[in-house]
C-alpha cells in the first residue's frame, strides 16, 4: 500500500506491506532509530511516538494507520543541533539524570512533552500517572519525575520572562 506520512515535519511517501508496524516503518524504512522496540505487547513504551500529537505505542500501530498523519519522534524534539536547541524535556533528563541506558528515554520524553503541552505544571503524581504505561529498568522513575519537573519549571520561567517583557513593553507604550 502506498502511504504518505509526515515525520518531524518532513513528508515521506512509501509503498509498504499492510502488516508493517509503525515502529519498523520508522526504524527500517526511514532509518529513524531513536524510536525503539522493547516488548511486542504494548507494555514497555520504548516505541512511543506522537501521532497527530497523541503519544502512541508504535509497536501496536500499523504504518498504514499513520497515512496522512503527522508523526513526531525523538529526532524531532530538538529544534537544531546545538545544546541551546534542545527541548527543555531533553535538558531536564540530562540535568536530573533521568536516563541511564537510554533505551526507554525517547518514549519517556515524548510522553513527558505531550503531558507538559496539556498540563504545564503537573504534580509528581500526575507525572507518574502519565508515564505509568511505560517501563524503565534503570532509573526507578524518581529522576524521570524530577526531569519533567525541571522542564516544567524552566518553561514556566521562560513564560514568566516573556510575560515580563510584554508587560514592560506595554508599560512603555
Amino acid at each position, binding site marked *: 500500500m502506498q502511504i504518505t506520512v509526515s515525520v518531524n515535519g518532513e513528508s515521506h511517501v512509501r509503498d509498504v*506491506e499492510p*502488516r*508493517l508496524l509503525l515502529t*519498523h516503518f520508522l*526504524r*527500517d524504512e526511514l*532509518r529513524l*532509530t*531513536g*524510536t*525503539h*522496540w*522493547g*516488548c*511486542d*505487547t504494548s*507494555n*514497555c513504551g*520504548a516505541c512511543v511516538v506522537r501521532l497527530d500529537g497523541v503519544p502512541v505505542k508504535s509497536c501496536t500501530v500499523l504504518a498504514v494507520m499513520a497515512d496522512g498523519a503527522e508523526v513526531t*519522534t*525523538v529526532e524531532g*524534539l*530538538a529544534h537544531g543541533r546545538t*545544546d541551546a536547541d*534542545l527541548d527543555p524535556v*531533553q535538558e531536564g*533528563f*540530562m*540535568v*536530573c*539524570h533521568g*536516563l*541511564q*541506558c*537510554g*533505551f*526507554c*528515554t525517547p518514549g519517556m520524553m515524548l510522553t513527558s512533552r505531550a503531558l507538559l503541552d496539556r498540563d504545564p505544571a503537573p*504534580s*509528581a*503524581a500526575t507525572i*507518574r*500517572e502519565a*508515564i*505509568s*504505561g*511505560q*517501563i*524503565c*529498568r*534503570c*532509573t*526507578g*522513575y*524518581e*529522576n*524521570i*519525575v*524530577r526531569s519533567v519537573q*525541571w522542564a516544567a519549571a524552566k518553561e514556566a520561567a521562560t513564560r514568566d520572562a516573556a510575560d515580563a517583557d510584554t508587560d514592560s513593553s506595554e508599560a512603555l507604550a
Partner: protein
Amino acid sequence: MTAIGEKGVQDPSVQIHAAEETPRGYGSMKRKEDARFVRGRGQYVDDVVLPGMLHGAVLRSPLAHARITSIDTSAAEAHPKVHAVITGATLEGLGLAWMPTLSQDTQAVLATDKVRFQGQEVAFVVADDRYAARDALALIDVEYEPLEPVIDAKRALEAGTPVIRTDKEGKTDNHIFDWESGDRSATDAVFAEAEAAEDQLVVVQDMIYPRVHPAPLETCGAIADMDPVTGKLTLWTTTQAPHAHRTLYALVAGLPEHKIRIISPDIGGGFGNKVGIYPGYVCAVVASIVTGVPVKWMEDRSENLMSTSFARDYHMRGEVAVTRDGRIRGVRVHVLADHGAFNATAQPTAFPAGFFGVFTGSYDLEAAHCAVTGVYTNKASGGVAYACSFRITEAVYLIERMVDVVAHDLGMDPAELRMRNLLRPEQFPYQSKTGWEYDSGDYPHTLQVALDKAGYQELRAEQADRRRRFADAQRSGAGPAGTAGEPVKLMGIGLSFFTEAVGAGPRRSMDILGLGMADGAELRVHPTGKAVLRVSCQSQGQGHETTFAQIVAQELGLSPDDIDVVHGDTDQTPFGLGTYGSRSTPVSGAATAMVARKVRERAKIVAAAMMEVSADDLEWDDGRWQVAGDPDASRSMADIAMAAHSNLELPEGVEGHLDATCVYNPPNLTYPCGAYICVVDVDPGTGAVDVRRFVAVDDCGMRINPMIVEGQVHGGLADGVGMALMQCIAFDLDGNCLGGSMMDYLLPTSLECPSWELGETVTPSPHHPIGAKGVGESATVGSPPAVVNAVIDALAPYDVRHADMPLTPAAVWCAAQGHPLRPDLGIT
C-alpha cells in the same frame, strides 16, 4: 520524622544530586553519553545496518521435554525470501551443535536429540527481512515425541524422575553439583548446644527465591559479519563482556582470536542478561559464514524472557541458633539450586553457587555452614544473571529474612536484634566464618543513619496505633474494611542490612573459564593535553564514559570534558573481563586510576626537565607539578603533555610521550554495605501492597559522581520492589513458561515505586586505589528482603511468619488466610 505527603511527592530534605558545572574530578556532572541518548542518536545493535545484511529468526520448541523425531525444512527453504535454514544437523557437521557454557557444562546451540525446555532453539532461518524470516519459521515442520518434563526442582533428584541430560554419557540422574562452605562440624556443635540449652533456640524457615528474569528493555541480539576474503569476523552484539566473548568464540568456533572483533555498542540495559553467549549469536555467526553476508538476529521479548539467562531459583532452608536474649550464634543453610536444562550460570570457576558463601551477612557469628545442591530441570538455563553479585542476592535475602523470623519468634524488635549482632567497626578487616575478608565498614553507624532518616520510632508508634484501630475494627465486626467505610490498612516496616562482596576478582582465586579476572586500562594524553582512556568494561547505562573520565580528571588535573573513554570494541581496548557483579569501578576503575598515576609519574619527570630541577623537588598540587615551596614554579598537565611530545631532552632511559598501560589485579573484593527500611500499607481485604516509603542508606566507599551513584541505587530499589511484589518466571507442571511476556511477567512502573529517600555513609575501601567499592547491584541485592520483611510485618495481626516472593495481592491474601502460595509453580 520525614514527612511524605501525596504519594510520589518528594520531601525537600531528601538527598538527591543533579548535574552541576563540570568539576575537575569527582562530583555530580552531566553524563557525557546523554547528549546522544536524548537526541535518539544512541547506537544499539538493532540500529546497525550493514550493506547486504540478511535477517535471522529462531524456531523454538513449544514443549519442555521431547524427543525430536524429524525436522522438515523444505517448505521454508522454498520461501522466495529465504536464503538458508540451519538446523542442529547443519551445526553437527561443523562441530557446533553444542557449545561450552560458562560453568564447564555444555549447551545445545540447536537441538539435535531432544528439546529440554520450552523455548529452546531448534532451527534458524535466514531471510531478506525480519518479517519474512518469521514467516518462514511457520513453514518448518518438526515432529516431537513428548517426554515427561521435570519442572519441580524438589522432584529432580527423586528416583524414577526422567533424566534430562541423556546427552551426557553415563548420566543417570539430574544432579549437577554439591558444594559447601564453612565449618560443618563447628556449626553442628553450636546448633546442638542451642537445641539443648534452655536459654537458646533454633529457628528454622524454608523459603524460595523464585526464578526471575532481568528483562533489560533492549533484548539480546547480534550482527555477524564474516569477511570471506580476510577471514575476519566482526560481531556487533549485546554483550557485557566483549573480551571474554572474543576468547570464547575463538575456543568454541575454532576461529583465530586475532580474526575476531567484538563490538558492543550502546547497550539497552544488561543487569547480567548479556553476560552469556546465546545460541542465537552462534547461529548468526554460522549464518554469516554460510551466506557470505552479514546476518542480524534480534530476539523478541518472549524469546528473551523464555530462553535467555534467568536468575535465582533457589530453594532454601535457613536455620539460626540464637540465645533467647537475641545473640545470633550460628547459621546453617541448605539450598536446592535449580539451574535449568544446561548449567550455564556465569560465575568464577571455583564458585558453583557464586558468592552465596557470603550468607553470614553482616553479623558476628560463632559458626556457619551451607550446603548447595545444583539440579537440572526442564527450564531455561542460566542462574547468575540479574544484578545479583554472583548470588549475594540470594545470600542476603536468606540471612535478612531469617533475622526477621528470629525477631518474630523472640518477640524482639528487628532493628534492635540487628544492632545487637552487627559487626563492629573495630572488627575490620573481618574474617568471616566462611572465609571472606570484609575490608571495611561501620555497620551500626550506617544502620543508625537509616533509622534516624526513616524516623523509626515514630513509624513504630504509627504502626501500633494502626494495629489498635485494625483490632477495633475486627472486634466491632466491621471486618478488614473497617468502620464507617474507612478501610484500615495494615502498616508494615521492614529492614534489611546487607553486605556485598564485589569487584571480582583476585586472579589467584577467581577466573571465568580459566580467564583471570584482572582488567587492563590504557591512557594516552595527546600533545595538547586532551586524553583518551581505553577500558575493557562495558557500560549498559552505568555512565562509564563520564565516571571513568572523572577518575582520570581527578588524577591528572584535567577536565572530564577533555577525556574520551573508549569501550565496547575489542580491537580498540585492552583485555578485561567486562561489566557484571558490580566490578567496573572496583576493577576497571582501579586500573584507570593506576594508569593515570603512571602517566602522572612520567609527567613529573618531564616537568622536572622543563623546569631544569630534580624530580625529587616536585610535588603534585591541585593538578600541577610544582617545585616544593614555590607555587610560581609549576607546570600543568597540558604544558607537560606538549613538552613530552617535543624535542625536550629527557633523562637517560626516559621515553617521550605520556601514554601508559596497566593491568589491575584486585588484592581482595570490595565490601559495600547498606541499611534499608521499607514502609508498606497492605489492604487486608485485597492483599494489595502499597510501598509508601523506602529509605536506603548505602555505603559504597568513595563516590565519584554522586548523581550517578544515586541513579544506580534508584534502579536497584525498583528491582527490589519488582522482585518482592511482582516479578516471577513460574511454570506449570507441563513446563509451560507462565512469564513469557510483559503481560505476564510484571515489571514495576512509576506507580509501584515510591519516591526513594537516600542517604549515605562513606567508609572507603582500604585497598582500592581511590577507595571506591562499587554500587551497581547493591540496591537490587539489599532491597527485596526489606520489602518482604515489611509485608510480613504488616501481616502480624494474622500471625504470618513467612510468605514467598512475589507477594502479589493473591499471595498476600492467601498468606493471611494461612494458605501460602508456592510461587514457582503455577499451582496453589
